[in-house]
């Protein structure tokens, strides 16, 4: 019982730290232009270096969704709906989730390890002593880059996922590409209430935007509170990936519930 209570208190403390870090970043948003070079570096590291992974995984997921649903739909003569199912599932759920998971594993872990190493080698303390604003210098560029990268990679992932699904629909299930893409495009035509782009697309992008911020905050927070040498860096990295993915899963459910509950 004591251990459960201690774990609960630790969870509350960590959540509080993460929320505080996020607020601190918001208060420094006007530093964004000053940090443009660092943001550029982070966009390169986080974007270019994981782009091929996002594309590969999304492409194969599109193929799998197409094949699995296509086989079942063929039995009831509804294979012309494959495009709709692949497009909707990629735009609403698969694209944002796949991208967030890859970014948490590849970028969030690296980010926690980098800041964790800085913490144990006293570089963070040195920055503090030099009166360098660590939130502005270290966290803001990383958060900004991930908040931009996650939706961007999601769009690209959605696109190749739908293309992958189309190739399978044509080669394995005998559905013409024209029919497949007409169905896919029709599925994404439901207009948004406030924004003149399809609802499924902008909700997917909104999810990605939130996931990018969550991954950045969780990973930076884990890295910056690292102590205990190499072991501590390992623990921080593991915690960053684990907590990011858990939070992404939980938030994904609640955002889906909030936007689609009446449909």
């Amino acid at each position, binding site marked *: 019982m004591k251990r459960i209570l201690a774990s609960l208190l630790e969870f509350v403390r960590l959540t509080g730290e993460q929320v505080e870090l996020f607020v601190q970043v918001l208060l420094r948003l006007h530093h964004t232009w000053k940090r443009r070079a660092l943001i550029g570096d982070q966009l390169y590291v986080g974007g270019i270096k994981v782009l091929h992974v996002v594309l590969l995984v999304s492409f194969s997921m599109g193929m799998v969704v197409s094949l699995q649903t296509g086989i079942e739909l063929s039995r009831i003569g509804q294979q012309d709906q494959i495009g709709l199912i692949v497009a909707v599932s990629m735009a609403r759920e698969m694209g944002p989730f796949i991208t967030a998971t890859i970014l948490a594993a590849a970028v969030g872990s690296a980010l926690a390890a980098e800041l964790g*190493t*800085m913490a144990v*080698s*006293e*570089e963070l*303390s*040195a920055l503090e*002593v*030099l*009166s360098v604003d660590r939130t502005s210098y270290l966290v803001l560029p990383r958060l900004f880059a991930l908040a931009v990268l996650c939706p961007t990679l999601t769009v690209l992932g959605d696109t190749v996922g739908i293309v992958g699904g189309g190739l399978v629909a044509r080669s394995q299930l005998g559905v013409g590409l024209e029919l497949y893409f007409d169905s896919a495009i029709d599925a994404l035509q439901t207009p948004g209430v406030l924004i003149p782009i399809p609802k499924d697309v902008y909700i997917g992008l909104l999810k990605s935007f939130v996931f990018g911020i969550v991954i950045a905050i969780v990973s930076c927070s884990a890295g910056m509170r690292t102590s205990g040498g190499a072991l501590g860096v390992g623990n921080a990295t593991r915690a960053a990936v684990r907590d990011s993915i858990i939070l992404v899963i939980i938030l994904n459910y609640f955002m889906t519930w909030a936007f689609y509950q009446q449909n």
Partner: protein
Amino acid sequence: MDAEVVIRFENVRKAFGKKVVLDGLSLDVHRGETLCVMGPSGTGKSVTLRHIIGLLQPDSGRVLVEGQDMRTIPRKDLIALRKRMGYLWQDGALVNWLSAGENVALPLRENTTLEDAEIRRRVQERLELVHLPDVYDKMPPELSGGMRKRVSLARALVTDPEIVLYDEPNTGLDPEISMSINLLIRELARKLNITSVVVTHLVSCIRVVANRVVLLDAGSIVLDAPPEEFVASEHPRVKRFLRPPHD
């Protein structure tokens, strides 16, 4: 005289868990003075420095720097005070993705509105001061331990601080470079009237730089004396520290 005291420890106690590191430490450092802090490992020498710079707060007692209590000082004033201080880290603590020159330039880029050319000029000047004129574009992993430490020293000095804290400035350096660092610390203190606190294990260092030496043991001061008197001391703890028995 109180007016000349820059750093004051008043009965400071600090513990990490059950381990008491500072136990009622009281100490004054005067303007322009170079105080060397010696003592066995784990007796709170680096912890003392971290209290001065405000990275640690005492459990009880007070640390005053320029008359300001480091526990209650507002964040804005702490930042302003730190801009007047320099800190040489034991392992350099250079930012790994910045070149040596950009590491030195960092406090100027972050805290001043100086033009790029002026920043570069000042950085180059400080790098030459620590005998590293050609490392501006070198990355930290390309530098030896001693070079990293000297780059860190250049970074500590680039803002023309009034107080400089040195954490083991000679560790990992060969005797020649070590002596040049000692001479540099002395020269800076004399020319610029910098107040310095130097944590060291080396008698060679205190002979060159110190006006005063204290030996810390078990969290408090065993002896506080000028360097010649300190080295010649017959105090059993000092003797054991400076001239440990061979068997």
